[in-house]
Structures are given as structure tokens and as C-alpha cells.
């Protein structure tokens, strides 16, 4: 383990940090050779959210089949690979452990080096699968578990300049969806309802301190809950489309304004959005509009690279591999792993 020279630039990547069991093969950090995702959404729906123990059980059931499928679709044998990459954290620890232990066993059996990748680095590097990343770069990472503004001076350099102080944006979406009695996962449904809405219920925007790039969504979530509660007490019907539209407008306006201000201050050459909520139409349209006007190239990966997948882990692993980063067989799941620079 620990070779620095690649034969084919082929990395097998594995991701199991939440409720998707995923494996992919990525060539030279930018070409998707195969990308397999086994989603558990159907199983978690009945609980209204991801149940960690159930997620872990499904990962064990799926993991070898998913890896085999990734190899089969790529028409490759283990001997054709140069390295194994796996999500080391953050995420659900029991879920992370399945991908990590499968990756270690596979790497050991096939005498391959292993690279442990940060899940958020993966989301950001999903963009490298679409077009080359240009630095300095600003990434807005928005998902069920994360809302972060990350400044990148160069490959492998991460500075978290803003993050949520309470709920992640995606978490707020899921909670508001529950208030509206929408099925899990609620984010895409709210996005759709917001588009159908004509009227918007006015909800507050939380800006925090004037110069802060941090976010807060729990107040907005409470405002929606209170609004529903007050309407119920008065015996009035709420309009789900107006609530969805008002809620989404608040989230999108704050995310867009802070991203724009950061992009200006840091004079970045590229702005990228990443994570499950980056697939949101309302957010995408808003960011595209402001950065188009600002003249800063803005990119967001296609849907299947925004939601959790292993291709993004393979994309992030390539520059790590080239920088000499190696994991070992003691690798453990790191549920609270911090995003650290490797340069």
C-alpha cells in the first residue's frame, strides 16, 4: 500500500454515510466510468426520515452487490484499479462503518492503497466531474446535514467561511414538509409547490451579524410552525403552495445574498453549488441569475451528482492521492469529521 504512480488513474470509490449505498469508478478524477447508487428512500419513508439502524442494515445487504455492479458497468477487474477511496466522515457512524470496512477488506485483498475522503470535499469535487475547477473558488454546500460556504484557494485547500448555527437548510426543508404533511423526503415537494404558488406567505430572513457568512434556519422553521398553529386556531386553512413559496423565498434569498457577498469579497473565479439542496430549482435559478449578472462563472452539478453518490468521492480522492494522502487498515468512521485542507 502506498504506491504513488497510477497505472490507469482508476479509483474505486465507496460512499455509505447516510441512506445511499454507492460505488463508482472514476478515471483521473474527472471521468465517470461507472456510478451506482442503491437508494434506501423507500424503506425510510414509513418512518418519516432516515433511521440510522435501518440504514446500517441495508448497507450490509447491498454493499458487495453495489461494488460488483460498479466494476461490471466499467468492465474492469480489481487488478485494473489503482486505489480505493471511501467516505471517512462526517455522517451516521454505523452507516459509515460499512463502506469503510468493505473498502478496507477490498483494498487489502487486492493490494490497493486506500484514501479516506471527507463527505463535503466529495460534494464540492462533484463539480470536477463536470468541468475543471478554477481557483480561487467559492462553494456553497447545502444538504440535509450541511449548509456551508467554503473558500478554496487551490486544490485541497478548504476554508469554511460560513456555516449554519442550527439547522441545515435541508433539515429545515424536511421539517417544514412535515408541517405541510408532505411525504419524506420533503425538499423536492416544497420546491415544486413553491413553483406552483402565486402568493407567498411572508416569512422572516435571518441575516445574523452584518459581516457574518453564517446561517440560521431554525427561526424560519419556527415561524412556519407558528403560522400553521395560528391559522389552525383561527380555524383557517393554510395554502401549502403559499407557505412553500414563502419559506423557499426566505431560504433562497439568504443563501444567494451571502454567497454573492462572499464571492465579491474573496474575488473568486468560480462559484459552485453542491449537495442535495443544490438540486433545488428555486435556489439554482436564483444563483444563476445573480452570478450571470455579476459575471462570475457559476456551476451546479446535475441532480445525480448533487445527491449522495460515490462518483464525487472518487473525484475528491484523486487530488488527495496525488498529494500522497493515504489511509490505513485502522481507518474508523468519523461522524463529526472536520473539513481540513490537505495542502
Amino acid at each position: 500500500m502506498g504506491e504513488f504512480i497510477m497505472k490507469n488513474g482508476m479509483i474505486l470509490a465507496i460512499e455509505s454515510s447516510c441512506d445511499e449505498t454507492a460505488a463508482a469508478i472514476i478515471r483521473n478524477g474527472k471521468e465517470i466510468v461507472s456510478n451506482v447508487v442503491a437508494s434506501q428512500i423507500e424503506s425510510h419513508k414509513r418512518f418519516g426520515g432516515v433511521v440510522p439502524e435501518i440504514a446500517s442494515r441495508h448497507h450490509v445487504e447491498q454493499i458487495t452487490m453495489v461494488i460488483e455492479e460498479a466494476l461490471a458497468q466499467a468492465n474492469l477487474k480489481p487488478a485494473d484499479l489503482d486505489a480505493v477511496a471511501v467516505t471517512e466522515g462526517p455522517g451516521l457512524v454505523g452507516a459509515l462503518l460499512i463502506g469503510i470496512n468493505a473498502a478496507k477488506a477490498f483494498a487489502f485483498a487486492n493490494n490497493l492503497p486506500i484514501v479516506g475522503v471527507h463527505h463535503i470535499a466529495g460534494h464540492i469535487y462533484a463539480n470536477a466531474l463536470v468541468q475543471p475547477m478554477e481557483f480561487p473558488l467559492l462553494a456553497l454546500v447545502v444538504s440535509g446535514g450541511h449548509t456551508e460556504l467554503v473558500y478554496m484557494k487551490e486544490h485541497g485547500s478548504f476554508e469554511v467561511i460560513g456555516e449554519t448555527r442550527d439547522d441545515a437548510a435541508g433539515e429545515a426543508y424536511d421539517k417544514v414538509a412535515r408541517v405541510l404533511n408532505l411525504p419524506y423526503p420533503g425538499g423536492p415537494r416544497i420546491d415544486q409547490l413553491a413553483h406552483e404558488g402565486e402568493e407567498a406567505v411572508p416569512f422572516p430572513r435571518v441575516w445574523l451579524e452584518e459581516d457574518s457568512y453564517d446561517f440560521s434556519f431554525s427561526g424560519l422553521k419556527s415561524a412556519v410552525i407558528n403560522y400553521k398553529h395560528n391559522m389552525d386556531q383561527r380555524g383557517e386553512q393554510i395554502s401549502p403552495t403559499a407557505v412553500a413559496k414563502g419559506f423557499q423565498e426566505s431560504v433562497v434569498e439568504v443563501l444567494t445574498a451571502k454567497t454573492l457577498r462572499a464571492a465579491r469579497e474573496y474575488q473568486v473565479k468560480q462559484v459552485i453549488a453542491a449537495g442535495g439542496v443544490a438540486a433545488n430549482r428555486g435556489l439554482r435559478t436564483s444563483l444563476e441569475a445573480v452570478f450571470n449578472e455579476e459575471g462570475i462563472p457559476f456551476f451546479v452539478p446535475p441532480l445525480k451528482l448533487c445527491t449522495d453518490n460515490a462518483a464525487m468521492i472518487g473525484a475528491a480522492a484523486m487530488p488527495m492521492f496525488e498529494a500522497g494522502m493515504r489511509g490505513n487498515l485502522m481507518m474508523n468512521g468519523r461522524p463529526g469529521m472536520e473539513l481540513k485542507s490537505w495542502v
Partner: protein
Amino acid sequence: MIWLGIETANTPLSVAVVKDGKVVAEMVQNIKLTHSAGAMPAIEEILARVGLKPNDLDAIAVSEGPGSYTGVRIGVTLAKTLAWTLQKPLVGVSSLQALAANVVLYNGMICPVFDARRGNVYTAVYQGMALEAIVDDYHAHIDDLLERLKALEVPILFVGTDVDIFWENIVEVLGDQAVRAPFSFDLPRATEVIRVATKKELPNVEATHYFVPQYKRIAEAEANWLKEQKEKQHE
């Protein structure tokens, strides 16, 4: 025929290599080290010590549970991935039966016990050298187990480190019927996992993908969900 055995179902960790019916090496430990950090390095080390490459293995035996959910999953994930990528057969063995197998040359009733918290245990009753299941592996409150054992009206040999947690309770109910195995039998061992596995038929390698842990208990969220569904039906 070269076997690799893996046991991580509870806190103890054990790995072993058995060749043509002879133990080549075995490692057993009972320390507070997570299996994710400890198990794969232990496999690497034992193979290195006996001078084998992963591909020299002919079959893999793993303790399939019950036990700690995470512990069982780590052993099964390692075993499943190794067996699949090396294209070698994978045999699962009950973690309780493997522990009972420690008590060799004993013809009575053996009761292996793993703590499942809140007064619950994973347990079973195996009889004698054939390790025939008198009570199948199950998750139960200790009181339920003791009631069943009392009804058997024969001496019961208890084995496992977790027996000590319940020993007072056990003696109170069973009195002289309860016998405590010597401490040196208490840790599950990968050689016993392999010994029990050798009595089973080797599955074909395609079966590996479908190999799953034997939790002997549904997840709490699922239990609650099923209860809710039942209540809804009654309404």
C-alpha cells in the same frame, strides 16, 4: 483447505487460520478497541505471521450474530467483502453456538449469554458435543430465559463474560442447577467459529451477496412502526 475465521460479534475480537484441520494461528483479545480499528489490522497481521496471501485462503468463516449490531456488521462486512472479491465460499456461524463450542467434551446443556442491555440477553441452549440447539438463538429478558431453563430440570452450564452481570439472578432462580464455566472458556474464539463452520456445507460463491447478519431482533424503529400499524388496525 485453509480457513480464515473472524469473530467480532461482541467486545472480544478473535481471528484464526486453520489449515487441513490444524490450528495454525489464533488471536483472541478482550479490550476496549473498536472492531473497525482492530479487526482488519488483526486479519492482516495473522496472515502475515503465517505467511499467507489473501488469495491462499480457501474459505472464510464468520460469526454472524447475534450480538452488538455494529460489532456483528463489521465482522460480516469484512468477511463478505473478502469472500466476494476473492471468490471464496463464506460460511456463517451463530455467535452463540461458537461460544458454546468452547465447552468441549461436555455432554450437558450449555447456555451462552451475551448482554443485550436493560435486563435482556441474546442466548440459546446447546446440548453437548454435537451442539444441538435445545433452545434456538433468541433475544429475551433474563427472567424469560431462567423460567425456560428451570423447566428443563437439568444442570445448565453458563458461558460468556456477560454471565457475571446476571449471575446473582441466575443462582437465585436456578440454585444448584446453575453451573459457571471456567473463565478461560468465556471468550468467543475464531477457531471454534471455523470448527462449527466445517460441519456445514460450503455454499457457492454467488451466495455471498445475500449473506446478512443474524440480529435476532428487529430494529427499535421498526418494532414501534409495526406496533403502530397494529394499533391502527384495531381502531
